[in-house]
């Protein structure tokens, strides 16, 4: 829609370095955000999109400082509003690759409404929610993903709010792409980021992120190298739901449509087969609710279906309406309706 100078940076030639900005990174030493930033900078060149065609939009939070550190266009907006800002950008320039970086507070607390409406509209943008289950930037209050009973600066007696499950919220809001990954599992993270990049429509990705200062080890019990095998269910399209260090456990469905964990020895028949593309969300929703300890927690792509995106529909509407509506010049605009002449 906009006039553009032609790209001088040939996408093919880009490397990770090209996506490192000149700003020095200001996260606490040891913060999980560093790994996510690195993963993104590694994945970016593979997208084959020139830097000037990429925009990162964020709200406010430690996570939301992300755009400063990646050498593309960036907009560090206000708390919770990044999806709305990004919507305006994407509608105006549908050919941009638009990414939203948000946190569990920014995206699910103050920004929850924009998040679900963006997913409802299926605006073509990638939303990465860094979930550290705490407010980092403001130094440690509960967030909408903090566990019930968690003691924080704002809940010294323990939090009384039941947490959101970000994936369930996304599926409830009819998101077309829903995935999860982990800051410290960089190959998996890059895979999920690539999948998000490839998806047309709103791609929602929850990333387990460690805030080593205010909520250290929040994901240890599921994401630590030594427990992962048993606590995480790595989803692969078309493959049965198998997990466990020895790959000796699987997930089956009871006749009443509830999931159960079963021991398997090699034979995976009867297990649910992961299908990220099916339309009916009951299955995807069920996956999103699987939580440790009874169940392994799923990572990977839960749901990925192609539906018309909001920006496509708008562009399409323009394409079809403009010819139908005849001349669109100022003369026609002004001299319409009932006019009369005074001599």
């Amino acid at each position, binding site marked *: 829609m906009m006039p553009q*100078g032609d790209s001088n940076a040939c996408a093919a030639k880009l490397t990770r370095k090209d996506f490192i900005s000149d700003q020095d990174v200001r996260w606490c030493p040891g913060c999980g955000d560093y790994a996510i930033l690195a993963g993104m900078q590694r994945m970016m060149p593979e997208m084959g999109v020139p830097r000037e065609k990429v925009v990162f939009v964020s709200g406010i939070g430690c996570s939301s400082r992300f755009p400063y550190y990646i050498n593309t266009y960036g*907009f560090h907006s206000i708390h919770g509003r990044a999806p709305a800002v990004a919507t*305006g950008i994407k509608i105006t320039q549908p050919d941009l690759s638009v990414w939203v970086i948000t946190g569990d507070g920014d995206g699910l607390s103050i920004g929850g409404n924009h998040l679900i409406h963006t997913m409802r509209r299926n605006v073509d943008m990638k939303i990465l929610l860094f979930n550290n289950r705490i407010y980092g930037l403001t130094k440690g209050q509960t967030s909408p993903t903090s566990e019930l009973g968690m003691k924080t600066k704002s809940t010294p007696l323990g939090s009384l709010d039941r947490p959101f499950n970000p994936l369930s919220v996304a599926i409830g809001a009819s998101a077309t792409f829903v995935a999860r990954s982990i800051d410290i599992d960089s190959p998996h993270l890059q895979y999920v980021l690539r999948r998000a990049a490839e998806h047309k429509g709103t791609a929602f990705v929850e990333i387990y992120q460690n805030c080593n200062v205010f909520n250290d080890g929040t994901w240890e019990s599921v994401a630590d190298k030594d427990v992962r095998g048993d606590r995480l269910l790595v989803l692969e399209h078309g493959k049965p739901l198998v997990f466990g260090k020895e790959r000796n456990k699987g997930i089956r469905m009871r006749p009443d449509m509830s999931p159960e964990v079963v021991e398997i020895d090699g034979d995976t028949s009867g297990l649910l087969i992961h299908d990220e593309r099916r339309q009916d969300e009951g299955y995807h929703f069920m996956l999103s609710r699987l939580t440790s300890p009874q169940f392994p927690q799923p990572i990977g792509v839960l749901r990925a279906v192609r539906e018309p995106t909001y920006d496509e529909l*708008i562009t399409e509407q*323009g394409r079809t309406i403009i010819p139908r509506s005849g001349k669109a010049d*100022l003369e026609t605009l002004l001299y319409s309706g009932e006019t009369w002449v005074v001599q």
Partner: protein
Amino acid sequence: MTDNESTPSTPVGPHRPISELETVVVRFAGDSGDGMQLTGTEFTKSVAHEGSDLATFPDFPGEIRAPAGTLAGVSAYQIHFSSQKVFTPGDQPDVLVAMNPAALRINLPDLPSSGILILNTGTFTRPNIEKAGYTSNPIEDGSLSKYQVYAIDISKQTSLALEGMGLTAKEVGRCKNFYALGLMFWLYTHPTEREEKSIRAKFQKNPKIAEANIASFRAGYNYGETTEIFPSRYFVPPAPIVPGTYRHITGNEATAIGLVTAAQLASLPLFYGSYPITPASDILHTLCMYRHYNVITFQAEDEIAAITAAIGASYAGAIGTTGTSGPGLALKGEAIGLAVMTELPLVIVNVQRGGPSTGLPTKTEQADLLQSMFGRNSECPVAVVAPATPGDCFWMAIEAVRIAIRYMCPVIYLSDGYLANGAEPWKLPEVASLSKIPVTFRTDPQGFYPYLRDPETLARPWVIPGAPGLEHRIGGLEKENITGNVSYDPLNHEQMVRIRAEKIAHIVHEIPEAQVYGDPSGDLLIVGWGSTYGAITHAVKLLRQQGHRVSSMHLRYLNPMPANVSQVLASFRRVLVPEMNLGQLLMMLRAQFLVDAVGLCKVQGRPFKVSEIMARAEDLLGAHERAAFATHAEVAS
């Protein structure tokens, strides 16, 4: 005007004299279902064609349809037309057409004694009379004795006229209003052909109804012609109107068309992000008709999403605009700050309504001026403009866009409910006369910095994503001047705070001086802004005719104010500021110019009457000293 238009083309009834009038105010009032708005606008079109100057005021009930016949369901439409220049819809009607008891009950208080009162007796049934809160039938109990009453059973007359046309009772009922219209055409000697054409056009989808309405219209006309009850007919000569092509337009339509025009003049896509709210919604409804003008309307989930999406659109190279009313503006405050900090163009349309809180959603008010100036955290200056008439909405919308782009800043555009729904004949501009709005997107990486400033305007460059080599990051944290990097440096912060303020102040160099209506100096200056223009100007005209040394200055630019304001204020002995609030412009003038101006405050959800402004002005001219903030309007409380 052409001859055939200047005199009525239907034969004039034999015995009836035609008296010429300079000015007439007619009010049509009835139930929401009675189609009074249509009757009014049809009559208005004819008046315009006859060459009178005119102003209209539709007054419909709250958002939800009230039960038929109730006071809450009364809808009215007033038109003021004259062979002289018309500034307002008129303080009070000369003729009141009341289609049912409720309409009579609500509107009668405005009718001066010996005013003409036309009633549809057919609706004065016991239940209707009671619904209107009357204990007895006003037509019979003599309570209307001081008016010239014409009691006609319009309902019955209409059904007689439509007999045999195969219409349902309901359909017949819907034609009543054209009977009344016909009667008015006769009374004011308007030609009927044009109207009949217009009816056919309007109901072309349903010819049966079209013919029925025409029959009803003729019946009304002929009733006047044949019966003897009206002693005379009237004729209002054409007014000296600037020649040109005219169109009847409401403030909301003009605002919408102005925005589209501005975007076209800037060769930019127009992005309008909005969340519906009375009385601003019609701007959205109008704009979404212009998709083929590269207009994108985005109905957001709330006002905050609407404005932040508009900011995103501006960032991406459209002209981002957002529209709302007072409560919505309150919600947009934080985001306006983001646009100020990121120095992006943005137009915020605010159609003011009665408040505070949800207040009186369908009524007019001017009480968001100070909110527009200060309704955000910290020092957060924006430009503020305000149209003076429905037609002026077109021009000020273009101004808002021009300023926003040239200075890379948000502009708040203050309309109000009265302008939004009020309509006037609007002289269409020559397209060629509209000057382009220059836009340059920075594309050259050489020596580029996001906050490099244009020495003249202090504006930063507009760079849009997609431009190779100019990748950069902006946001809501304080910026280092020039580089745009995040900066906590104390001196840089102070410098930026002052630059943002100066940038807005600089706009003064590119806006016209404020016009003074009347002499450049005198005893009293009446200062106004927004929709009070008509009432103030008319009041000043009359006061001057009475020989008073009174002038007026109407501010269409409120921040910054035109350069000559201070000098104009200084040229008058007293300064009066009529506002539909408790003295907001008044406060700004007193603080900025230390002038001992006094306010005339009316906060009743309805516009000033000319008489109210004249009364207050006469007091002041009577030169009694008063306390600075003392105010009084039609009602003292």
